[in-house]
């Protein structure tokens, strides 16, 4: 059940050059949130009027954990938020990842796509499952989920400054034959990466779930602004709303050429 509340900042700390971690007290949202879902953060009296969507990166009792990257004015503003301040948020929003209990769960996160993967991973582990985590980035200045146990963590960078040299999907393809079938892929990251994962899924007949990003106005199905091109079950062109029909889609639903 969606809830609007004045959340209280518990912690707001810098992780790397551009990445920050924000912990917010929001009991009702924390209670209901599932991996893959997101919240909207509201900015009072701002020249930029839209709230900003952020994936839930974890739940810590009554608190939500977010991981955000500074990319523009509002994420920049967030870095000045102090413990104890109140900020209005709405959540949990959108659908969530469908979890498979057998075989291998493979998480693929790139850049800020790391956030929902961290939440999903804790969730899988709490269910006794042992997911493989592929984390890719341009270089070692990006944020990597350090807490993940090394044996299950597969890091890659485009420039080889950390882990495997190459992109995360190449990395995954290299490892995939070692994983127990059936394999389930869950991913969030740049469009290019997700498109490559869709192809990989087709090639190996693997189910792939993707978390999509678009500009959003309302975050809850009011404005129809967050449309993306998709395919219906029988392959017809369709339009879906990321905030309501997503953000999680089956890879085969996404029309990357829209």
């Amino acid at each position: 059940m969606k809830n609007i509340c004045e959340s209280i900042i518990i912690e707001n700390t810098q992780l790397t050059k551009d990445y920050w971690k924000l912990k917010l007290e929001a009991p009702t949202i924390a209670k209901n949130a599932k991996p893959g879902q997101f919240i909207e953060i509201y900015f009072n009296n701002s020249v930029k009027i839209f709230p900003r969507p952020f994936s839930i990166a974890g739940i810590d009792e009554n608190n939500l954990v977010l991981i955000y990257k500074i990319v523009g004015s509002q994420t920049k503003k967030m870095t000045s938020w102090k413990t104890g301040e109140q900020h209005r948020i709405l959540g949990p929003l959108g659908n969530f990842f469908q979890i498979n209990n057998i075989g291998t769960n493979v998480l693929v996160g790139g850049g800020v796509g790391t956030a929902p993967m961290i939440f999903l991973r804790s969730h899988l582990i709490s269910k006794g499952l042992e997911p493989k985590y592929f984390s890719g980035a341009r270089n070692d200045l990006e944020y990597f989920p350090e807490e993940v146990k090394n044996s299950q963590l597969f890091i890659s960078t485009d420039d080889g400054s950390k882990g495997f040299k190459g992109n995360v999907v190449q990395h995954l393809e290299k490892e995939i034959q070692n994983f127990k079938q059936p394999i389930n892929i869950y991913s969030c990251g740049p469009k290019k990466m997700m498109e490559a994962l869709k192809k990989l899924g087709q090639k190996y007949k693997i189910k792939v779930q993707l978390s999509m990003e678009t500009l959003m106005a309302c975050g809850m199905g009011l404005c129809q602004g967050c449309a993306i091109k998709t395919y219906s079950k029988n392959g017809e062109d369709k339009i879906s709303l990321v905030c309501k029909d997503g953000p999680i889609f089956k890879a085969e639903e996404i029309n990357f050429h829209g």
Partner: protein
Amino acid sequence: MVDLTIKISDKIELQNPIMTASGTFGYGDELSTVINTNLYGGIVSKSLSLEPRIGNPPPRIVETPSGMINSIGLANIGLSRFLDEKAKYFQNYNGKIIINIAGKQDDEFYTILKKLDKIEWVHGFEINVSCPNVKEGGIQFGTDPEFMFKLIQPMRDLTDKFLMVKLSPNVTDIAQMAEKVQLAGCDAVSMINTLYGAAIDIYSGKPKINTVVGGLSGPAIKPVAIANVIKTYKAVDIPIVGIGGITTGEDVIEFLLAGASAVELGTVHFFNPNAVDEILQFLVSYCKKMNIKRLRDITGKAKI
């Protein structure tokens, strides 16, 4: 006790002057789990067409200073699905329900109107004339007074329910348009729909909105809306429903003083879904402070 009830013509009395603006509140039920949607005086539906429309391709929205541009393209589930899926929610809804109708030609408007006239929980209509007429080469119904008059005049014979026409500000003289609405026997006029607006991504060179030019809304356009309401209030006797950038209770009072009988909240829903609650609280405290017994008495009372 402050009386917030208002009438928009004799046909519709609202518990308060706050309604939702078409296309900014889904079908009316989306927010019902987040806020108390019964707080509104009325709900104006998303623009409905006869058949479902998937709307325009993405990107459909972009932020602009204190505003936004949209080009949703009247995406909607179509008349039949609307009636099937939403009837139950609306039958139990407290406030008034006004259906916004958008057709691509005259007949489409009339067919929808005739069907909905028979539906009990539909209290009235808002006619969206800001859509292009496919038959006439895509000219907007809402930019030429005679053209619009020809579209709306027959509507009066099709329904006795509350009938309101929503005007576009993208005309030289909105008051002249409103006079035609009055002449056609409609019960009220609502204004403003969005202004034309566009934005271009300077790195890709691509328009930020699929249709290049979209509709500008939000706080940025409030002064334009107020100016239009002031002009129209002088020109016509039918009630005006004010729309455009309303964010706070102060804004609502401003519209009423300018000449509006009621208002619709639009873009504000995206950045403050709870606005209706805060606005109603302000209206009560304003009336108390200013010693106003009936809020409706301030309509058009600006010292102009």
